[in-house]
């Protein structure tokens, strides 16, 4: 059988295949990106490279997920 973690390990080593923004740019644009997501707008077209960064940077991804959850709760 295939080792369950090997894909995840290789994925973490190689990071995203697409061009990505830096952590600083991600933080600067995170509020805009999340509000576009909540509005159902194509956030990835508006802010290319941010999704790839979230795939490659666990810390930024956690903060994105928290902001999305917090703002989504505010909008309910």
């Amino acid at each position: 059988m295939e080792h369950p973690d090997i894909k995840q390990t290789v994925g973490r080593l190689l990071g995203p295949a697409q061009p990505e923004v830096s952590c600083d740019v991600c933080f600067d644009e995170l509020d805009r990106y999340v509000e576009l997501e909540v509005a159902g707008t194509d956030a990835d077209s508006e802010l290319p490279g941010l999704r790839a960064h979230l795939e490659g940077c666990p810390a930024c991804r956690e903060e994105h997920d928290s902001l999305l959850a917090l703002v989504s709760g505010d909008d309910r």
Partner: protein
Amino acid sequence: MKVIAAATVPTVVDVRSPLTIAVDPESREWLESLKSSGARRDDAIARLHAILVRAARFEIARRRPGLPHLRGDDLDDIANEAADDALMSVLRRLDDFRGASRFTTWAYKFALLETAVKLRKRAWQGRELPLEPESWTLFASTGLQPDAAAEQGAVLAALQEAINDVLTPHQRRVLIALALNGVPIDVLADRLNTNRNALYKTLHDARRKLRKHLDEQQLSPDAWLEEK
């Protein structure tokens, strides 16, 4: 597993633009109040601090299952400290707010960041960071069909070779700590006296080197990685 040739090596892009968006009325009220003086400003700062505390507590609640060692008092202290630090950041960067989101969304992210960083550091407080690369190995899957096993073995061998021979010692240390040993980037940045952005740049450069090495050998595991 399909091993296909030549994936593009990713680059860093900057999507920031000097966009000017009409600020919504509620956000404008926040800005005007926080830039005013006297009782109006004091009231706005108190309201802002309250929503930052709320965001900090929200972040703590999300992470609570992973924080069994922290007591309620500790978590309250962390929430208040994170909100205090976030308040300072927001006030210092008020002129950076461009109206690309609601003001509260913009402010929340500072509280979430401060809280997350504090919790990551508390979780690793006193722990030795696994930075040394001597003892790591990429294990191939077992029981694959011979072709797939050979292809996967080629990728893993090339990766291991690249990590050992192509990366600088600093890149290797950062890659192994972050990508293999799960050290949080803020914790590692703290120990190495750098910051998240600089450390991620090191990780990004290391990853580019690994991808370039695989490309040169006509190996790319992206299709395999995307398979369910």
